[in-house]
C-alpha cells in the first residue's frame, strides 16, 4: 500500500513537472525513465539463467496485477524462461494472459504483441492460442452449481 501511494505521488509529481508526460504514460512509442526501469526489472527477472517454474509463475502473476500491458520484450523473456523450465503449457497460458491484459483495446494491441514476439515463437516452436484453437471456447464445463 505504501509503495502504491509512493508510486502515485511520484507519478503526480512527475506530471506536475511535465504535463506532456501525462499523455505519454505507458504508451508503447514513448518511454519515461520509470517505465524503462520497470521493463528492465521484469526483463532481467525472466532472463535469470537459474529461474525455476515457481518464479516464472510468480512473475507473471505479479505482472498481471499491474494496470498495464507488458512490453513484448518482457513477454519474450518470459517465453524463453518457459523454455528453460520446459513448460510448454505455461508459455501458451502467458500469451493468453497478456491478451487478456489488452482489455477493451485487444484488437489494437494484441496483433502488435504477436507481431513483436513472432520471432521468439517461431524460434522456440510455441503455438499461439489461435493456432491451438483457444481463441474461442473449445470445451464446455458443467457449472458446479448445476451438479447433483
Amino acid at each position, binding site marked *: 500500500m505504501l509503495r502504491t501511494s509512493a508510486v502515485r505521488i511520484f507519478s503526480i509529481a512527475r506530471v506536475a513537472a511535465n504535463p506532456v508526460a501525462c499523455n505519454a504514460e505507458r504508451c508503447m512509442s514513448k518511454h519515461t525513465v520509470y517505465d524503462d526501469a520497470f521493463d528492465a526489472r521484469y526483463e532481467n527477472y525472466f532472463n535469470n539463467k537459474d529461474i525455476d517454474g515457481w518464479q516464472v*509463475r510468480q512473475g507473471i502473476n505479479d505482472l498481471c496485477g499491474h494496470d498495464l500491458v507488458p512490453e513484448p520484450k518482457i513477454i519474450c523473456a518470459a517465453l524463453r524462461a518457459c523454455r528453460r523450465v520446459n513448460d510448454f503449457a505455461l508459455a501458451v497460458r502467458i500469451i493468453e494472459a497478456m491478451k487478456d491484459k489488452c482489455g477493451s483495446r485487444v484488437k489494437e494491441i494484441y496483433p502488435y504483441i504477436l507481431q513483436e514476439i513472432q520471432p521468439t515463437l517461431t524460434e522456440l516452436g*510455441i503455438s499461439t*492460442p489461435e493456432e*491451438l*484453437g483457444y*481463441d474461442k471456447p473449445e470445451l464446455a464445463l458443467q457449472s458446479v452449481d448445476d451438479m447433483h
Partner: protein
Amino acid sequence: MASRLAVFGIKGLRTPKVPAGAVAMSGHGHGSGAPDFSPIIGKREVVGFGINGAPTYGDRSDFPLPAIRWKESTPDILALRKKELGDWKNLSIEEKKALYRASFCQTFAEFQATSPEWKQIVGVSLVVISLGLWVYYGLVAFVYPPLPETFSEESRKAQLRRMLDLQTNPIQGISSKWDYEKDEWKK
C-alpha cells in the same frame, strides 16, 4: 490463509488416513519439511505459489497461473513431459493441446465466455408475463361485467360538453382553450 488451513484441517478430520491437523504441520515421513497435500490434491504437481500459497486450482484472469497443475501426473502425461524436454517444434498440435490441458482446466476464452443463462431468464419471464395477460383477457371476457354506460363515446362527449358549459378551469385548463363565441376550440 488461516481459513484455508482451517478447511484443510476439517478435510483432514474427515479423511481417516490423515491425523487431524497433520496437513498444517510439516510433512510426516517426507523429511523435506514440505507439507503433504496429497490427500487433497492427489498426484497433482505443485508448481507455484498461486493466489495465496494454498495448493488450489482456479481459472481466473487476475491470477492466470494457479499453484497446482489441473491433471494428475499419469504415465501418459509423464511420457508427454519427456517429449516436452526436447524441441517444441517436434510436438504436434494434439500433444501441445494435451500438455495445456494437463496444466490448465479451461482456456481464457472458455472461462470468460458469457453464460447463456440470461436467455432462459428472459424467455421464462416473457412466458409468465404473457400468461398474466391471457388471464387478464380471460377475466375481461368471462368474469367482469360490461363497462358502465358512461364509458361509451357518446357519454364521454356529453361529459366534455358539460365541463365546457360549466366553464371548468377557465384560466389555464380546458375551458380556456374553448372559444365560446364561435362555439369551437380556439385555434
